[in-house]
């Protein structure tokens, strides 16, 4: 077994929170530039250029990319030879979130009960999904998730007979209805198959992928290309003012399904597609 101290995990997570909120990944900035060059609308082109500029201002370290510094969502790959000393994995991560959001001047957006709650004051608890792997590494992926785009996400229990067309219709309706609300240009995470909750998790997981990196599954990759083209034909455009750039990327994840079930999910991310990884 390889021992990892909980305090080391907290320290790494603290840095990860601050890094994710200030430094938009290069894959996202490159996609902004690519779409700006191809934009037909002057206003849309201007907005995309301002998003590149916003990323540069945020990288200077004074202002986070967005005032909504998100729900801290973690995907953790935990090797079977990793033993964590001193605290549980979730306690270690939450301690890092607490420190990162406080010391990084990031906005705390979590209330402790959905109905009668008040702000927890430190942006905890975070949402943590653990995936067991082989080996002695702990790989922590963070995507701070804004509320505006999360609110436009959906899940549907389709029928197996709905097939590929059923998925396309569901995704298109969800994106069309969201319109300007999720801060387009958006990233669209799509989950197909699995159970109700696992399908939603796949759509979330899809948002952690580097922008434009196609699925390893050729059928999924073809669906991603078709959906991206169709979504950009909606004309919603950056901020919803019209344009060719409504989505920057569509990522599809799939999992085997029950013979009776055909769940599909759409998790929408705003253009501030923050995602960072640390390996311990």
């Amino acid at each position: 077994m390889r021992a990892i101290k909980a305090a080391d995990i907290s320290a790494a997570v603290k840095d990860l929170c601050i890094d994710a909120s200030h430094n938009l990944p290069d894959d996202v900035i490159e996609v902004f530039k690519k779409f700006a060059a191809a934009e037909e609308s002057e206003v849309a082109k201007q907005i995309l250029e301002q998003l590149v500029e916003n990323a540069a201002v945020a990288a200077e370290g004074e202002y986070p990319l967005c005032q909504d510094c998100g729900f801290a969502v973690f995907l953790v790959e935990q090797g079977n030879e990793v033993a964590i000393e001193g605290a549980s994995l979730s306690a270690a991560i939450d301690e890092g979130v607490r420190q990162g959001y406080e010391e990084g001047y990031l906005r705390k957006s979590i209330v402790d009960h959905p109905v009668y709650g008040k702000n927890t004051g430190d942006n905890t608890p975070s949402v943590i999904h653990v995936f067991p792997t082989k080996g002695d590494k702990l790989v922590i992926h963070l995507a701070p998730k804004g509320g505006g785009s999360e609110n436009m996400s959906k899940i549907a229990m389709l029928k197996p007979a709905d097939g590929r067309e059923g998925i396309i219709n569901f995704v298109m309706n969800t994106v069309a209805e969201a319109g300007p609300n999720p801060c387009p240009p958006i990233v669209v995470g799509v989950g197909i198959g699995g159970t109700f909750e696992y399908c939603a998790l796949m759509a979330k997981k899809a948002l952690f992928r580097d922008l434009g990196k196609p699925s390893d599954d050729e059928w999924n990759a073809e669906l991603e290309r078709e959906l991206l083209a169709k979504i950009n034909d909606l004309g919603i455009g950056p901020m919803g003012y019209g344009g060719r750039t409504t989505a920057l990327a569509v990522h599809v994840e799939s999992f085997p399904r029950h013979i009776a079930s055909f769940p599909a999910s759409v998790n929408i991310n705003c253009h501030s597609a923050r995602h960072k990884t640390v390996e311990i």
Partner: protein
Amino acid sequence: MAKEVVIPVEDPQVILDLRAGEEVFLNGRMFTARDAAHKRLVELIEKGEELPIDLEGSAIYYVGPSPARPGKPIGSAGPTTSGRVDSYAPLLMERGNKIMIGKGKRNDTVKEAMKKYGAVYMGAIGGAAALIASAIKKAEVVAYEDLGPEAIRVLTVENFPVVVVNDTVGGDAYIDGREKYKR
């Protein structure tokens, strides 16, 4: 060339002249308020009590900024989703609110109220929050400090960039823009 509008608005005609899709720079003072602050304002109005802020000619920005670093007036300050205050907005327009600033769609009741009271809805660039912060020169909490990021602040802004989304004659930049570029 973007138009300049001074806030709070003294001449109501300035608002009537604005059209959906126009780019505008705002200069002057605006209030910030999210759902929680709206709820309190509306409760006071319904009880017939005095408001902590003067709504006449006002601009209200739907924002919950991130904490200010030492020496800075404010943290990042992009717009939040406007639909969440739709149920409160008409009453504030009735009390003189002229400009609402946020992001995302408004419902039909709010759009009708804009025509009735001569008010407009403007969109700020969601997620360009670090960039927007540079147009905010001063920020001061004036009510509901206990709400933290949701407290009502007065922001002094210079060339704060917005686009008119809904005007006083039923124009809607979200609908027009989408129509123009859909295939």
